[in-house]
């Protein structure tokens, strides 16, 4: 007949008592746990790219709309200036402005130096 160690018996008895422990979950604890249950952001969510970053810098799509409108208006004024614009530039600069940046004779002078 196998002898059992009284200390082992005591420990086995304590283990058995401990396994019986099944504390009820209080409403307070359940509330604490559910308050914490906020879905976090996914760590692998796509990071903003260059274009979306640029969009943020200039102020979003509404700002892009204003920029495009201003660009088209400027282009059209350049192609077909309204009379108010031509009158304004004529008054400021004179009717015709000609600017000479160089001349054929000047180039010839350079050529003469090379020959000499």
């Amino acid at each position, binding site marked *: 007949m196998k002898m059992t160690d009284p200390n082992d018996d005591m420990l086995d008895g304590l283990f058995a008592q401990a396994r019986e422990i099944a504390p009820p*979950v209080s409403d307070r604890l*359940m509330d604490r*746990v559910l308050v914490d*249950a906020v879905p976090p952001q996914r760590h692998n969510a796509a990071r903003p790219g260059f274009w979306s970053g640029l969009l943020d810098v200039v102020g979003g799509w509404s700002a892009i709309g204003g920029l495009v409108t201003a660009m088209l208006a400027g282009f059209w004024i350049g192609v077909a200036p309204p009379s108010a614009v031509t009158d304004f530039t004529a008054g400021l600069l004179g009717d015709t402005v000609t600017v000479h940046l160089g001349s054929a004779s000047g180039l010839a002078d350079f050529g003469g130096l090379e020959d000499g």
Partner: protein
Amino acid sequence: MSIAPDPDAGIPDEALLIAFANGDAQAARSLAARLLPRVLAQATRMLFDRAEAEDVAQDAMMRLWKVAPDWRQDEAQVSTWLYRVVANLCTDRLRKRRGGVPLDQVAEPADDAPSVAAQMQTAARMRALSDGLAQLPERQAQAVSLRHLEGLSNPEIAQIMDISVRSVESLTARGKRALADIMAGRRAELGYEDD
């Protein structure tokens, strides 16, 4: 507390966790109702301190919510993961308990309970068992608690602790032996001399 019937009964924990990560609040309620009783029981058996066990249970569930977005369905079972987290959190607390805390934290039963002395003796024994676990090396305490307090098999413990079955056998054998020696010194105090 009375827990309402689980409307997600039949859906695996892992699928509910992923649903929670995708914003399903009902999935969180179902998971909490399903898992929290077992988490609290494991913590209470190891710590035998209601307030500490509730803090551990809340902490473990908080970690579950946080890990939800990165959970891969084929990676692990939620229950296995929780056993590991609770065991680790409890051994952290047991480590801080080393150095001697008197048994004055044992919950006292109501005075009009029919067997006050018996309840107090059981509480003192459970607290002594918990203090005994605190004296063991942490891995031994975890293996012993999972084997003898949770009643898990060695292969299950091996998966939880991420070690071989042979290592589990070694840890539980050495841990139980050491715990028996520790508890032997408290036989009379715990009322075992007359048993």
